[in-house]
């Protein structure tokens, strides 16, 4: 039965259901158990933004606090995964990857290949990305293109509470290392989510809106922005097909290519900075594999090649918005050679 819950609650529920189902699932991260046991505190923090709140008492010994030492504890999650556990480790902000990236990309991601296929490392790294909270340059990045670049990792970008739950369940059950990217501005968005456990398969895009004029591929929080733009554009007589790939690795290239085969036009919306990002990835894919169908230049709507600014006056300009998306769509819809 579906009810309306938030993105944050959806992730929490997925964790709880998987912990219930499988004793090998454990959760760890800074302040995941922080504060527990103190006078005056009847629960643990459940992480800085409370995503794992409520799990500490419910699953004794399976929600671990960590010192601030991401290499050690993300590495520990990886090591535990090689021994049959299914750890979910919280890298509080994706921006902190720089202090622990080695464990993720040289260890977890490469074990299976380096060891000739004789390893499985079912670890999930939950992490918070994205701009909008006035958190400035070191707490607002959208670094998933970096993880996507790395063979051996799977990269997940849920855009709604429904996806958040189903993709988290899949992440935990998946036998490969998964980087699960939660957009901090989506935590409080709500949507219909079934109470029952369900897994959304990786590499299967959602078509969130059908349309025959322009294909719009958008990632994570940008899916909602693209939908808004599509709504506006429908008023102008332009029908967008909005595709939410859900995972950047694996990427559902088929759905994207099929859509472009029919629309002949592509706009990609990526909150990340513009170089070597998902916008370039999808545009290059299409320019290589569906060139014959393309009837206009591809368009990339991304953040500028700059760190995320603090001031709201600048940050609001930094993030791709429905207006910029609509403009890009119009420019390709109206393109003439």
């Amino acid at each position: 039965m579906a009810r309306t819950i938030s993105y944050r609650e959806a992730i929490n529920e997925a964790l709880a259901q998987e912990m219930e189902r499988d004793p090998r699932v454990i959760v760890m991260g800074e302040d995941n158990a922080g504060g527990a046991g103190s006078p005056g505190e009847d629960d643990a923090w459940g992480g800085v933004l409370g995503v794992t709140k409520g799990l500490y008492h419910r699953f004794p010994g399976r929600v671990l606090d960590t010192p601030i030492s991401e290499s050690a504890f993300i590495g520990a999650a990886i090591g535990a995964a090689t021994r049959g556990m299914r750890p979910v480790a919280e890298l509080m902000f994706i921006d902190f990857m720089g202090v622990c990236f080695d464990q993720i990309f040289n260890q977890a991601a490469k074990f299976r290949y380096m060891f000739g296929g004789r390893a499985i490392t079912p670890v999930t790294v939950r992490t918070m990305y994205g701009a909008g909270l006035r958190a400035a340059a070191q707490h607002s990045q959208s670094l998933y293109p970096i993880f996507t670049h790395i063979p051996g990792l799977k990269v997940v970008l849920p855009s709604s509470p429904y996806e958040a739950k189903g993709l988290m369940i899949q992440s935990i059950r998946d036998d490969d290392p998964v980087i699960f990217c939660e957009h901090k501005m989506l935590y409080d968005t709500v949507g219909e989510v079934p109470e029952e456990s369900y897994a959304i398969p990786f590499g299967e895009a959602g078509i969130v809106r059908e349309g025959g004029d322009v294909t719009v591929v958008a990632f994570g929080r940008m899916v909602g922005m693209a939908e808004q733009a599509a709504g506006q554009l429908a008023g102008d007589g332009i029908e967008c097909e909005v595709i939410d790939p859900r995972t950047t690795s694996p990427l559902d290239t088929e759905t994207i290519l099929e859509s472009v085969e029919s629309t002949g036009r592509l706009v990609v919306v990526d909150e990340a900075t513009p170089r070597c990002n998902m916008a370039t990835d999808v545009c290059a894919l299409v320019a290589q594999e569906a060139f014959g169908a393309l009837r206009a230049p591809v368009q990339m709507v991304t953040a500028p090649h700059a760190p995320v600014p603090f001031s709201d006056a600048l940050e609001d300009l930094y993030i791709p918005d429905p207006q910029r998306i609509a403009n890009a769509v119009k420019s390709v819809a109206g393109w003439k050679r």
Partner: protein
Amino acid sequence: MSEIDEITLLDAYRMMRTIRAFEERVHEEFATGEIPGFVHLYAGEEASATGVCMHLDARDTIASTHRGHGHCIAKGVDVKAMMAEIYGRGTGSCRGKGGSMHIADLTKGMLGANGIVGGGPPLICGTALAAKHEGAGGVGVAFFGDGASNQGTTLESLNLASVWNLPAVFVAENNGYAEATSSSWSVACDNIADRAAAFGMPGVIVDGFDFFAVHEAAGEAISRARRGGGPTLIEVKLTRYFGHFEGDQQTYRAGEVAHARENLDCLLRFRTRVTERDLLTDKQLDAVDVEVDALIDAAVAEAKRAPRPAPGDLATDVYVTY
């Protein structure tokens, strides 16, 4: 203590009082919803930044943390520019691009608050190295928290500083918590200062509510560093008065703050000590209070009036040339 002259004492008081007033005011203003983002306040810890930075001059550099306002003020960053920065205004220290977590002023040797726990110590190895090459006796000081003392980047910096015999001082501000996680749990040894031995440097513990204790310990460490005697690790034990960040309900430490404010407060203790020993008068101190409060009032008023950055600033300042 007798060696500290009257002017220096007044400066120290002004510095601590400025930090306190700044932080109390940001706390109030944050509650109105006008200040955006994550704000981590330093109130309660003033004796640490002040006791250390009173020894520093233009040759010297410091690196700070997410809880950086106190260090900035103590190293001489303009208070009005800081306030404007926290409000995200174009007149801010970083022209509105950095915010609370990134206030910096390189012209003052202040390398920045830092959003990355453990981000500062490596940088200070570098400024200390530059100072050593320059040969003018400069030192680098890295401030970091108890939580940061568990971060590998901090630990390996201690080793590097020792191996390179750098003029560096590492100040571990142990306020008992990293967010809601107690340092008595997260730091696997009794005192952070005990880690000094692992990296071949002296380790010292000081009472962070006592300006004079910090001042003395820092003075020794800094002068040894200036003389080429290498780095020191100083652990300053203290308490923060507000939550980890503004908005934190602090359910994890009922009562602690009230106790510290009433019995340990660095400003109160400073006042008692200097007036009891007739080094300064209440009148002198009260005059500083008035001056400081006016400065903070003005800083807030000006920040509120200041313009936001212009849209054209969005993608500037990324490179010197590109």
